């Protein structure tokens, strides 16, 4: 191996930084899954009848389903009876009433993760830039700036709170984009989900700050099943950020989340994710199975939903944030960076379903594979009969670092309206020894050169992220690559 390759190898083997475990007393339900467990979860959350019904219907449906096998990932069978479906920090069994009631130990955990939960240091008259909903294992432990947001009629709270205080909104929209029958993991989530974030932006309101959720898996052997629902009414707009991390565990942890977005006429939702779950160690032991269903519905005319994701963590990622473009002239976007190293596997992409007239979609996917990882882009663009004059542009680029990894692209196009247009471009390249040498000859270190080249490769996606997030993402990419490039 050349010395450059060795440097790169060293860079890629950098340890996962967020792998600490916190000693927090937890309230858990018994291991395993049956109707009793579901009733128990629902009871713990003091849910109305319709919620329990919905969960039970989902559970019965799930029993009839089989785990999907079409995706290009490999993992040992998951024992669904060996998972703890509900785990919450003890102190928050009734949910904290204010930030002062939040367990200081928990605040410390988030502080350590760099997620500020204290509404401090905000100058009078200056609107804070980000409100956070912090989710710890199965429950939301804190939501900041709720009062400030309420001044504009924006509801931003945990899913559990929404069920208590806004049941009519939950009942109306829950499952309207991802029905409980959707797919194996989404159906499981519908049965057992314990918490998540809820946002409602009323008619004509531009949400005055970025909303964000930060999800942390702490407990061992648990699964994480959160559910997020975002509704933007006519002319409303919101930018939502999602971050996550998990301790290092030798055992795999299952994360099966669902995100549903609904945009009415002229509404805009921008959903950005920086996913940094524990990826497993360098030999592929442990790590999170990230099996997530994310979908947005552009219900209204001229509405717009934009997904941006930077996926660097998880042992396995199985995720296709999608858009249903139902309203005429609605717009769907998907910008993705997926980086895999060591033994990580990612099968990710998007679906754009064009129903309405003149609907437009853009897909930009950047896959980076290092080590012995496998990185798959899977995308579907469907132009249905009513999609008069619809357009799609897709671009899928893969960058290989080293020669033991793999990149795969599976685009599916289906056009049932002959006025619709689709355009697909794809490329695969290897990080060039000549590019690295060129940088080094100008005085730039090997490490900086790799990170510069990879960041350059991802530029079109990073420019879609909110400013601070883009900086974070670039750093994360640099850190993730340390030691994995060979």
């Amino acid at each position, binding site marked *: 191996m*050349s*010395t*450059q390759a060795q440097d790169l190898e060293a860079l890629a083997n950098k340890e996962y930084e967020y792998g600490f475990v916190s000693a927090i007393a937890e309230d858990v339900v018994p291991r395993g899954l049956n109707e009793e467990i579901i009733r128990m979860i629902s009871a713990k959350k003091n849910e109305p009848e319709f919620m329990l019904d919905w969960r039970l219907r989902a559970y019965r449906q799930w029993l009839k389903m089989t785990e999907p096998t079409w995706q290009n990932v490999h993992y040992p069978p998951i024992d669904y009876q060996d998972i703890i479906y509900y785990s919450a920090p003890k102190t928050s069994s009734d949910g904290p009433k204010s930030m002062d009631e939040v367990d200081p130990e928990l605040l410390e955990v988030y502080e350590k993760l760099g997620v500020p939960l204290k509404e401090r240091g905000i100058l009078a008259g200056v609107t804070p830039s980000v409100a956070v909903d912090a989710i710890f294992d199965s429950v939301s432990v804190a939501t900041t700036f709720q009062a400030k947001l309420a001044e504009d009629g924006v509801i931003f709270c945990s899913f559990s709170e929404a069920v208590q205080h806004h049941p009519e909104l939950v009942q109306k929209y829950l499952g309207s984009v991802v029905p409980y029958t959707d797919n194996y993991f989404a159906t499981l989530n519908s049965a057992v989900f314990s918490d998540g974030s809820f946002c409602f932006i009323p008619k004509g309101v531009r949400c005055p700050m970025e909303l964000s959720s930060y999800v942390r898996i702490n407990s061992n052997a648990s699964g994480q099943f959160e559910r997020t629902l975002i509704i933007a009414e006519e002319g409303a707009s919101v930018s939502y950020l999602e971050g996550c991390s998990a301790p290092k565990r030798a055992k795999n942890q299952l994360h099966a989340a669902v995100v549903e977005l609904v945009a009415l006429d002229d509404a805009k939702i921008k959903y950005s994710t920086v996913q940094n779950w524990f990826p497993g160690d360098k030999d592929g032991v442990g790590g999170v199975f990230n099996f997530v269903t994310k979908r947005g519905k552009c219900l209204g005319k001229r509405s717009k939903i934009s997904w941006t994701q930077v996926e660097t963590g998880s042992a396995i990622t199985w995720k296709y944030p999608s858009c249903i473009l139902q309203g005429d002239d609605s717009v769907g976007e998907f910008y993705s960076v997926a980086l895999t190293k060591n033994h990580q596997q990612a099968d990710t992409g998007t679906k754009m379903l064009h129903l309405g007239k003149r609907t437009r979609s853009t897909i930009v996917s950047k896959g980076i594979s290092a080590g012995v990882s496998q990185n798959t882009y899977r995308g579907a663009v469907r132009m249905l009969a009513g999609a008069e004059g619809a357009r799609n542009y897709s671009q899928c680029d893969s960058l290989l670092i080293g020669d033991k990894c793999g990149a795969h692209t599976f685009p599916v196009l289906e056009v049932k309206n002959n006025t619709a247009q689709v355009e697909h471009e794809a490329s695969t390249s290897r990080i*060039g*020894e*000549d*590019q690295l*040498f*060129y*940088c*080094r*000859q*100008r*005085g*730039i*270190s*090997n490490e*900086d050169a790799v990170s*510069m*080249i990879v*960041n*350059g*490769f*991802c*530029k*079109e996606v990073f420019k879609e992220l909110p400013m601070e997030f883009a900086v974070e993402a670039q750093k994360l990419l640099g850190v993730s690559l340390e030691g994995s490039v060979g």
Partner: protein
Amino acid sequence: MPQAATAASGSGPTDKDESAGLQMLEIKNLHAKVKGREILRGLDLSLKAGEVHAIMGPNGSGKSTLAQVLAGRDTYEVTDGTVTYQGQDLLALSPEDRARAGVFLAFQYPVEIPGVSNNYFLRTALNAVRKYQGQEELDAVDFLALVQKKMQLLHMDEALMKRAVNEGFSGGEKKRNEIFQMAVLEPRLAILDETDSGLDIDALKTVAAGVNALRAPDRTVLLVTHYQRLLTYIVPDYVHVLSAGQIVKSGGKELALELEDKGYQWLGEPDLVAGA
């Protein structure tokens, strides 16, 4: 062993500065292999501060190999010999440290780096060099001021600075960009590998002016070229002929004219000459 190689260490140009005439680079008995094949076979060359040397020679004789070995590319394995740069063992340094210590290579084939702006790339490079040399790093504003001066010197279009490094640049623009980078980085030893090929007449003059502006008593330029044309604009102090991995003849600027006239054949079969 031909004696020609040592001609370069004869008297240099008149001293204008105390650094002029000091040893810049001393190559002794350099052997280098690529993929098991020996390309450089006992090369000797001595360059003093303030001098401009030209290296000419047939295709495949090892000119680019020499340039790459000096820059530290690890596809080329040095099997014997020494290279001393400003008193230190050049071969012991990493490519980036050589660059930071003032060795610059203008590539025969400049590399494209998509998504990384020329501006960002060059600032990162300059600051890495400055940091190594104990100078303060330049912020975006100071950097811009510096770059604007150098852009004028090389008639560089400002738009090129915002574009990704060499991406979609024409052949000539890439070469000009190399010299522009050199002008910004102000190296001590500049190695230019066929910077003239692919340039139109006007660009050639501009690039030559850029190089000439950089000529200084404490700086050395090593030009690799096939054509006398460049040497009418950048007048060398010495001309060397590289053949089959060795310097087989050295002389003054008139040697280039002679080569243009007679080609390389009159120097004899390379293998005979090189067969040490």
